[in-house]
């Protein structure tokens, strides 16, 4: 289930619209945010805590560059639809998996494996592939033309759903 846009007032939306990037690196960052949005530091912190507890935010903090912060790889497996959940559970149980989606394709489970470095990444993928018992499509990123998930939230469009 997802939240409804009516659960978020203009302060929540302002936080989400303005601060997916550019949170200042100063002693009191939430005070600086509060001043810009015309509210108090306590209120900003309370709002962020609420958004976190609702699951609308996964965290407040840095997004690291995959290529520089460690190793990661997009992988996919084709498994029978009726046992997909069980395979997904095995994938989630493997160390380093940070995204795992079902998609409409013969390759129906897509996940991202991460590790501190390349040899560890390979070891994790090999171990998981052996565990799953199905061949794994390994699709490392060769070049990124655009990698930014801080896109504007289409509030108006969401209101209609």
């Amino acid at each position, binding site marked *: 289930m997802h939240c409804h846009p009516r659960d978020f007032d203009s302060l929540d939306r302002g936080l989400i619209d303005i601060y997916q*990037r550019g949170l200042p690196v100063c002693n009191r960052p939430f005070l600086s945010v509060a001043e810009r949005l015309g509210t108090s530091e306590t209120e900003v912190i309370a709002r962020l805590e609420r958004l976190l507890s*609702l699951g609308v935010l*996964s965290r*407040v903090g840095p*997004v*690291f560059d*995959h290529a520089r912060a460690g190793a*990661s790889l997009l992988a996919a497996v084709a498994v029978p639809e009726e046992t997909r959940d069980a395979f997904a559970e095995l994938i989630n149980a493997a160390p380093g998996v940070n995204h795992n989606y079902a998609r409409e394709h013969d390759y129906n489970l897509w996940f991202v494996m991460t590790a501190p470095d390349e040899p560890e990444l390979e070891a994790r993928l090999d171990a998981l592939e052996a565990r799953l018992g199905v061949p794994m499509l390994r699709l490392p*990123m060769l070049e990124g033309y655009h990698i930014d998930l801080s896109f504007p939230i289409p509030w108006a469009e969401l209101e209609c759903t």
Partner: protein
Amino acid sequence: MSAATPLPLDAVRSRDEPAAHRRLRALLEQGMPLTPRPWQTLAEQAGMAEEQVMACVRRWQAEGMIKRLGLVVRHRRLGIQANAMMVWDVPDEQVEEIGRRLAQEAAVTLCYRRPRRLPEWPYNLFCMIHGARRERVLAELAMIVERLDLGELEHRVLFSTHAYRQCGGRYVGEGAI
């Protein structure tokens, strides 16, 4: 380590990093503490001074290791449920140009080149479009195909039907904290 010289990739990898920096990164990957002085809180946890933590974060930003700092949104929870991965089979000599043009489309949130894995997987260019509804995403895609004249290229759209996991990267080893 000087802030002015970009480090080679290997030098910022875990094994060469001072222990306190590694701890700080591991802590940051879980998010900042929501306290009035979050850097101070982190400093206490990482065994550093607040000013050192802020200097470290600023340097990682300048070096590009931190791409952005702020609220990390779970789009699905906001109702942005249609997450379409588009995959294209682009002749190698055109992939860079088409990748760059796709990346400039406002609706495209991610765009990468990846290897083909023949015969199972012929696609070498990936991009993502997020939206509240499937029809809307498909309409966006149709406009992009027309605008960039990509009708000839073999492509597929893989909508996600379920998110089993969606969370930030944890690159630092689990023993780091």
